[in-house]
């Protein structure tokens, strides 16, 4: 199929539709509004639902309803709105319901700003809502990946019966790049015998629920869920490695920060510095093995982030503190320039960690 030029946010929407998602609920917020606008145009023409909910809270609970019915469903928002959705996300996790939540991140905390950020990393990868649970967290670094990972997120969410999050940022959401959209998915959907579609008089009633008042039962539910999470960690890690084979300095970055870092790495290589990049595509499960392996041979790591240093903690855990890890960051909607990253690489090369 020929490539088309699309905004990242639009690529998410079109890819979701092609992945069989016919229900979208959202609430306006910059910089993700194009997802909703695209859905508002397309859904009525293909027999789907676009509904602008009264709040982010309602939107995520409408998602909960559609997912309970066994259908593919999504919502999208940006940081402050995603905070509002956390209650519903916890309920989705607690009821083992698949769904896609898109966060096109902006600066925070509070109302923050509208420029790109990656400061919802903790919220996305460590919980966000209450209780023990995980989300599958995918971090696109291009418009192509906005499309590909949207479709992947639906598949993974269905496969493991858990919510998935596409953790993008304002830059990837707003930029246009050529993209090859996925084919329309028509089969291969996971069966959902647990869905509440009406008993049809043929079976006992299904119950979608996250309440277990008997602690032994709730414990068992949690343990079962974490068995599933273990499978996700074993099978679903996605990572890109760029020039890491002979690297002395290993940059770790995702999303837009990885794009900037690649420029810096190329510039460093031109200066004879052996720098490489590990780009987590899944933030949960985090590519621990790739980091651990790199720790055996690199001098140290540089975590390039649009946050005050959140992923850096996972890097340190993964490399078991064997090598130094430094932070190269900008926050509040600022993006580090390739020169800033290059200078961090040069310092590291000089032994300054």
């Amino acid at each position: 199929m020929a490539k088309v030029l699309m905004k990242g946010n639009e690529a998410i929407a079109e890819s979701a539709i092609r992945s069989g998602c016919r229900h979208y609920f959202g609430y306006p917020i910059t910089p993700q509004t194009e997802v909703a606008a695209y859905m508002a145009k397309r859904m009525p023409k293909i027999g789907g639902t676009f509904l602008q909910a009264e709040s982010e809270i309602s939107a995520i609970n409408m998602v909960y309803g559609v997912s309970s019915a066994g259908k593919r469903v999504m919502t999208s928002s940006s940081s402050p709105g995603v905070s509002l959705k956390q209650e519903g996300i916890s309920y989705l996790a607690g009821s083992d319901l698949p769904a896609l939540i898109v966060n096109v991140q902006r600066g925070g905390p509070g109302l923050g700003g509208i420029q790109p950020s990656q400061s919802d990393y903790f919220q996305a990868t460590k919980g966000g809502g209450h209780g023990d649970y995980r989300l599958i967290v995918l971090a696109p670094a291009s418009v192509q990946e906005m499309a590909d990972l949207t479709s992947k997120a639906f598949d993974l969410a269905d496969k493991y019966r858990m919510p998935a999050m596409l953790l993008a940022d304002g830059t990837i959401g707003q930029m246009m790049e050529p993209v090859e959209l996925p084919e329309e998915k028509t089969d291969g959907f996971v069966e959902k015998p647990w869905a509440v579609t009406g008993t049809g008089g043929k079976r006992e009633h299904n119950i979608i629920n996250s309440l277990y008042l008997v602690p032994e039962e709730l414990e068992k539910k949690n343990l079962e869920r974490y068995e599933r999470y273990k499978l996700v960690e074993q099978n679903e890690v996605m990572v890109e490695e760029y020039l890491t084979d002979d690297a002395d300095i290993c940059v770790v970055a995702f999303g837009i920060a990885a794009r900037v870092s690649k420029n810096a790495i190329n510039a460093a290589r031109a200066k004879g510095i052996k720098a490489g990049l590990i780009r987590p595509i899944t933030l949960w499960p985090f590519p621990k093995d790739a980091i651990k392996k790199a720790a055996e041979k690199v001098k140290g790591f540089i975590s390039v982030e649009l946050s005050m240093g959140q992923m850096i903690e996972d890097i340190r855990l993964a490399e078991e503190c064997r090598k130094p890890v430094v932070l190269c960051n900008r926050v509040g909607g600022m993006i580090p320039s390739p020169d800033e990253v290059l200078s961090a690489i040069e310092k590291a090369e000089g032994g300054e960690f």
Partner: protein
Amino acid sequence: MAVVFSKPKALTDAPLHYCPGCTHGIIHRLVAEAIDSLGILDRTVGVAPVGCAVMSYDYFSCDMVEAAHGRAPAVATGLKRAMPDRIIFTYQGDGDLASIGMAETVHAATRNENITVIFVNNAIYGMTGGQMAPTSLPGQVTQTSPYGRDVKTVGYPIKVCELLSGLDAPEYIERVAVNNVKNVMKAKKAIKKAFQNQIEGKGFSLIEVVSSCPTNWGMTPQKALDWVESDMIPYYPLGVYRDKSAKEAE
């Protein structure tokens, strides 16, 4: 031998956990009877609230979803949009529907979402042990209004039927009570109509059921029913607040 009375098919065999004298049992039965009599059990999905009726997912034999506190109308919206041919109802208390879930309630109503809402108003938070509800009466003593509801500081009770009737969209809004046989029979009719409306695609139907909570009101069941008559109903007048189809037919 002829069977003259039996449990509705729409109820399971699970024993109800409700307190002695609580009217939830009656309301559950009325909902179940409506589902049975309309022959929709196999295509009905219910949404349980957070509150005393949280475990109603175990009591209704149709498919059930447990929603977060106050979010039942949003969850029901998702279910209905995904499955327009299924019958979706929510069963909610006063804290759930009129306090934390007010936005969801009002917006589902103003979209004329084709769902059925059963709203149980007993003027108190029961499950958490008797705190002031959005519908607690002026002067009513609760755990969190120990000197009586002071309308000067916490405001007046919310009259849900009156409030929703201010919207253009909703199809049907009626307030009933279950404190005596006559009122129970009226409630039964109203609840059935609320489901019938959905089957006919008419839209949002809400039945407020003025109910009692002897345990948290600190009354005997009989006294609680008397208090419904003497104090609740005068503040929350029974009757049909909105019947759009009937009005259009005039």
